[in-house]
């Protein structure tokens, strides 16, 4: 797994499962009204991979669903519909299914 030089664990779109919700009353103004979901990144086989992340939900996902997560500030801000928002991860899709052949091929 490639590691960001400053320790950001991922820098790509990834598959994850929604595992929880976060309630925060006091937060940055640009995040007001945003839905915060905890997601656990998964391998293609569906096994947990790495530490859970906190994301902005842009598509109405719920706990237990498999989702597509983007780990990049510009994309996450776009998903939230706000420019220059202090976010670095967003759920941009709910996954129906994933098909793949041998990942090492």
């Amino acid at each position, binding site marked *: 797994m490639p590691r960001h030089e400053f320790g950001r664990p991922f820098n790509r779109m990834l598959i994850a499962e929604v595992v*929880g919700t976060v309630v925060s009353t006091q937060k940055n103004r640009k995040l007001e009204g945003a839905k915060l979901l*905890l997601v656990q990144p998964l391998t293609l086989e569906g096994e947990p991979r790495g*530490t*859970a992340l906190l994301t902005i939900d842009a598509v109405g996902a719920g706990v237990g669903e498999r989702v597509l997560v983007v780990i990049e500030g510009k994309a996450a801000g776009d998903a939230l519909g706000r420019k220059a928002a202090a*976010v670095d991860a967003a759920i941009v899709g709910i996954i129906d299914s994933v098909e793949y052949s041998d990942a090492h091929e």
Partner: protein
Amino acid sequence: MQLARVIGEVVATVKDANLTGTTLLVLQPIAISGEPAGRTLVAVDSVGAGVGEHVFFVRGREAAFPFYPAEPPTDAAIVGIVDHWTAG
């Protein structure tokens, strides 16, 4: 973003002019179990967090956004205080 617990404060008298007036806090990232997960780091605070509180923080260039139009040279910023979270 990531969950973390504020475990300390950094005092730096001599620093970049764009960091003047900011609060620098030491964070321990945590897993949803509440257990420490990964290395500690220093983040600029944008919400008035204090030691012992659970927060979430953003990494990368977006970490400067809460301070707009100022552009502090930071790669991590606390953007929310966590009231509570649910897992599972």
